[in-house]
C-alpha cells in the first residue's frame, strides 16, 4: 500500500493538471470603477506629506513644552529652599 507522503505527492501533482474555469470580469471591474465604487486611494506620498506637515507643527510645540516644564518648580522644594532664610 502507498504511504501517505507518496499519496499526497501524487494527489498534488495530479491536482495541478486540472483546468481552471475561464472568467471575464472586465465589464464588472470597469463598471465598478466608473460607478465610483472603486476610487484610487491616496498614495503613500500623500500620507507622507500629511505626516511631514503634522511633524512641522508638533515639533516646535514639543520644544516649547519641554523648556517650559524645565522652569517648573515643585512647591515643596521651593518651600524648603526658602526655609533657611525664614529661620534666620
Amino acid at each position: 500500500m502507498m504511504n501517505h507522503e507518496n499519496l499526497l505527492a501524487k494527489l498534488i501533482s495530479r491536482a495541478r493538471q486540472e483546468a481552471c474555469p475561464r472568467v471575464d470580469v472586465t465589464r464588472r471591474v470597469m463598471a465598478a470603477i466608473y460607478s465610483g465604487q472603486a476610487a484610487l486611494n491616496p498614495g503613500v506620498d500623500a500620507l507622507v506629506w500629511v505626516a511631514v506637515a503634522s511633524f512641522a507643527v508638533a515639533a516646535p510645540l514639543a520644544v516649547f513644552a519641554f523648556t517650559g516644564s524645565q522652569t517648573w518648580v515643585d512647591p515643596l522644594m521651593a518651600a524648603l529652599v526658602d526655609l533657611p532664610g525664614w529661620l534666620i
Partner: protein
Amino acid sequence: MNGASHTGASDDLRDVESCRNGNTEAYRRIVERYQQRIARMMWRFARDPETHEDLVQEVFIEAFQSLPTFRARAPFEHWLARIATHVGYRHWRMQARRAEIETVPLEDWHELTASDPEEMDAEKVAELLYGLIAQLPARDRLVMTLRYIEDRSVEETSRLTGWSVSMVKVQAWRARRKLEKLLEKACGGL
C-alpha cells in the same frame, strides 16, 4: 520569451501610468491581460464558480485602488499576485469565521484508495485535495497552496505572504505534516 516579458512589463508600466493620470480605460487592458492568470490563482482559494469570479473581481478592484502605491520595483504581475494572495487569504479567514468549510464525503476517499491518483480525473483529485486542505487553519492552507500546489519557492511564498523566509519554512513543514495526518485519517477511516 525575454523580449515578450519585457514588452509585457513596459505595457504594464505605460498602462499603470496612464491610469494614474486619469485614463481609467487603460485599466481595461490590464484586466484583460491578467485575468486568466489571476483566475487560475484564485481557483485555489474558491472552487465555487460564483465566489471565484467575485474574488477575481475583488483582486482587480483592490489593485486599482492601490495603484498609487505601485512603485515598479518588482514586475506588476508580482505586485498583483500579492494582492490576490491577500484577497484569497482574507476570504478563507472569513469562511473559517462563518464555519462554512465543507468536508469531503467518505465514499470519495474510498475511490482514491482503490485507484492510482494519476489515473483519476484531475478535477476529482483536486476536489479531494482541496477538501482536505480546507480542514487546515487558514495559515496552513495558504502556505500549502503556495508552496506545494502552486510550487512556488520559499522566497516567492515569503514575498507573497509577507512572512519571513524561516517562518515560511517552518509553517510549510508543519502544514505538510498536518495534511499527511489528515490524509492518513481520511484513508484509514474506511
